[in-house]
C-alpha cells in the first residue's frame, strides 16, 4: 500500500467520434463548467463555438511584434547610413552609437534614400512577427512544461492517435465527485476515470 498523497486533477471521459465530442462539449458548456477542456488528435472545426472559447488574442501580440521589427530596421538603417537623426536634432544618438553615414552608389544621405531601406524593413517585420507568433503561442498555451497530471492516465495517450476526451478539472467550482461523474456518463462519456496526481 502506498502512502503517497494524491491530488485529484479531474474526471476524464472518452468519446467515440468527433460528432459525439462536439455535442458533449456543448452540454458541458451549457452546464456552466469553466475549468475543462476537450482533447483531440487534430483541431475540430467549430469546437471553439461548442466550448464557448473566445478568439485568440495572438494576432495583437504579433501586430506589435511586427511593428517593433519595422522600427528596429528603420532605426538600424537610418542610424548607420544617413544623417537623418542629426537632421531632426537627435545627433546624440549617432554619437552614442558611433555611426556615420555610408556614402556609396551616389545615393543621398538624407531621409529620402528611404526606399532603399524598404526590403530590410519588410524582412525584419516578418522576422519579428514570426518570433512573436512562436513565443506568443507558447506563452498563451503555457507550454513547454515537463509533465501534466493527464499523462498519468494510461488511456489518455490515445489522444494523439484516435481518442477524443473531455476533462473537467477538480478546480472547477461546479465540480463534485459524484455529480460530475454521472454528468459525464449522462452525456455519453465512456471509461470515465478519476485522474489523480502525486503531490
Amino acid at each position: 500500500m502506498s502512502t503517497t498523497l494524491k491530488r485529484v486533477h479531474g474526471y476524464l471521459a472518452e468519446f467515440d467520434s468527433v460528432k459525439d465530442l462536439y455535442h458533449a462539449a456543448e452540454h458541458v458548456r451549457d452546464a456552466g463548467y469553466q475549468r475543462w477542456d476537450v482533447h483531440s488528435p487534430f483541431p475540430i472545426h467549430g469546437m471553439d463555438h461548442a466550448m464557448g472559447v473566445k478568439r485568440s488574442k495572438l494576432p495583437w501580440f504579433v501586430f506589435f511584434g511586427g511593428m517593433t521589427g519595422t522600427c528596429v530596421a528603420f532605426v538600424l538603417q537610418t542610424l548607420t547610413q544617413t544623417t537623418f537623426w542629426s537632421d531632426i536634432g537627435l545627433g546624440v544618438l549617432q554619437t552614442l552609437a558611433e555611426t556615420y553615414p555610408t556614402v556609396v552608389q551616389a545615393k543621398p544621405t538624407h531621409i529620402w534614400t528611404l526606399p532603399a531601406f524598404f526590403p530590410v524593413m519588410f524582412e525584419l517585420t516578418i522576422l519579428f512577427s514570426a518570433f512573436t507568433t512562436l513565443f506568443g503561442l507558447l506563452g498563451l498555451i503555457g507550454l513547454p512544461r515537463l509533465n501534466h497530471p493527464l499523462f498519468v492516465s494510461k488511456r489518455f495517450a490515445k489522444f494523439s492517435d484516435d481518442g477524443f476526451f473531455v476533462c473537467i478539472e477538480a478546480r472547477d467550482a461546479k465540480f463534485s465527485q459524484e455529480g460530475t461523474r454521472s454528468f459525464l456518463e449522462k452525456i455519453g462519456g465512456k471509461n470515465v476515470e478519476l485522474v489523480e496526481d502525486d503531490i
Partner: protein
Amino acid sequence: MSQAAATDHPTAAPHAGAPRILDREPLVLNNRSYSWITNRICGIVENKQPALWWVLFVPSVLLTGLTVFCFAYLISTGVGVWGQKQPVAWAWDITNFVFWIGIGHAGTLISAILFLTRQKWRTSVNRAAEAMTLFAVMCAGLFPAFHVGRVWMVWFLAPIPNANAIWQNFKSPLLWDVFAVSTYFTVSVIFWYIGLIPDLATLRDRCKPGLKKVLYGMFALGWRGANRHWSHYETAYMLLAALSTPLVLSVHSVVSFDFATSVVPGWHTTIFPPYFVAGAIFGGFAMVLTLMIPVSKIYGLGDLITPKHIDNMAKIILLTGTIVGYAYCMEFFMAYYSANKLELQTFQLRGLYGPSTWAYYFMFSFNVFAPQLFWYRPFRHNLWVVMFVCMCVNAGMWFERYVIIATTLERHLVPGSWRVYEATWVDKYTFLGTFGFFMMLFLLFLRFLPVIAIGEVKGVLPQSNPHHEDHGKEGVQEEDLMGYPDRHVPREAVA
C-alpha cells in the same frame, strides 16, 4: 439550414438542365481510419528502414564529404580554383545559390499559400515539402558564403558593430538578400516546427520509455491536444501562413534584384521579380514530385498521396512552366522593342549565335516544352512521364540560372574583355556534393520525423467534421451547406 433545404425539396430529381454536382474526390483513399494513418506514418519512423534507404544514404554521405573536401581545397588554396575570371565573376556558385533557393519556394507555397486558399490536398505533402525547403536553403546558403572569398570573414554580413566601425551597405541588393534569405530560413523553421509539435506528441505517446521518448517528448513541449491550445495553435498557424506568403514572394524578388538593379544588359529588366518567383515555384514543385513519388511508392503511402495530389502538382508545373516560357519570350521582345543595341545583342548572343547557345536550348526545351505534356490527363497520371518531366525541369531550371548569370557576363560591354567561361572540376564537384547533402538531410528526415502531417491529414477526413453524418452523405459537406443535397451523383455514374 441544409436540413431545412432538404425537406423543402424532397427527394425529387433535380430540375432538368440544373447542373449536377460531382462528389469530391476523397483526399484519403480506401476510407482509412485515424489509427491506420497514425500507424502507417509513424511506422516509417519506428520500423527498420528498407535496404534502399541505406543504398541511398551511404552515397549521399560520401557526396556530402565531396563538398566538404572541395570547400576545404578552396579555402586552403584560394578562390582561383573556381572557374571565375573577369568578366565572369559570378558563375556556378551564384547559379547554384539561385537554383537551390528556388527549390525551396515550392515548400512555402504548399505550406502557406495553399493553406490560405484552403486547398486541403496540401496536407499530404506539406510536411515533406517544408523539410525540402529547409534543406534546399541550407544548400543554397553555402555558395554565397564561400563566394565572399574569405569565408572566415562572412560574419561581416551580419549587422553587428565591429572594430572598424564600418556598417553594411543597406542600400545594396546583396545585403537585402542576406536579410531575405536568413529571414526566410528562420521563418520556415518556425513554421515547420509549429506544424510538427502535435505529430511529435504522437511519436512520443507511441514510444517505449527511453531516450527516444525523452527526446520526442522534449520537442513536443508537453503537447496534450487540448482545444484551448488548438484554438491558439490554429491562429498561430494561420498567422505564419499569412506572414510566409509575402515573404516567399519577396525572397526570390530580392534574389532577382541582385541582377535587376545592376546596369548589365540582360539583367536590368523589370520582369525579373515575377519571372524569378514563377520559376522558383516551377522548379520547386518538380523537386517535390521528384522526392514524393518515390517516397510514396517505397513506404506505401499511396492512400495518402493519391493520383489527385500528383495531378494537382503537375497542373501547377504546367502553369508556372508556361509563365516562365512567356517570360523567356517577353525578354526577347523587350530587348528588340527597347531599341537598345546592347540589350538586343545580349539576347542574340544568348539564344542565336553566342558561345553558350546550347545552354539556352536546354533551358528552353526542358522548361517550356517538356511540361506541355501535362495538358494531357493520362500523362499526369503516368508516374514515369511525371518523373521524366520533373527531371527535365530540375535540369532546365539550373540551366536557366546558368544562362542568366554566366552567359550574360561572358559578353561584357567591352568586347576586349570577352571570354568564354569554363567551370573547373572544383565547381562541378562542389555542386554535385550539395545534392548528396540535400539527400542526406532528407533521408534523415524520413528516418526520424513523420513525413506526412499526421494531425492535418486526420483533420481533412470526412468523419472529422462534427456535422458530417447529419445528412447521410460523406465527404460533401460544403455542397450540402449550399443547399443542394439531392444533386450529388457519384463520380463513377458519370464516367
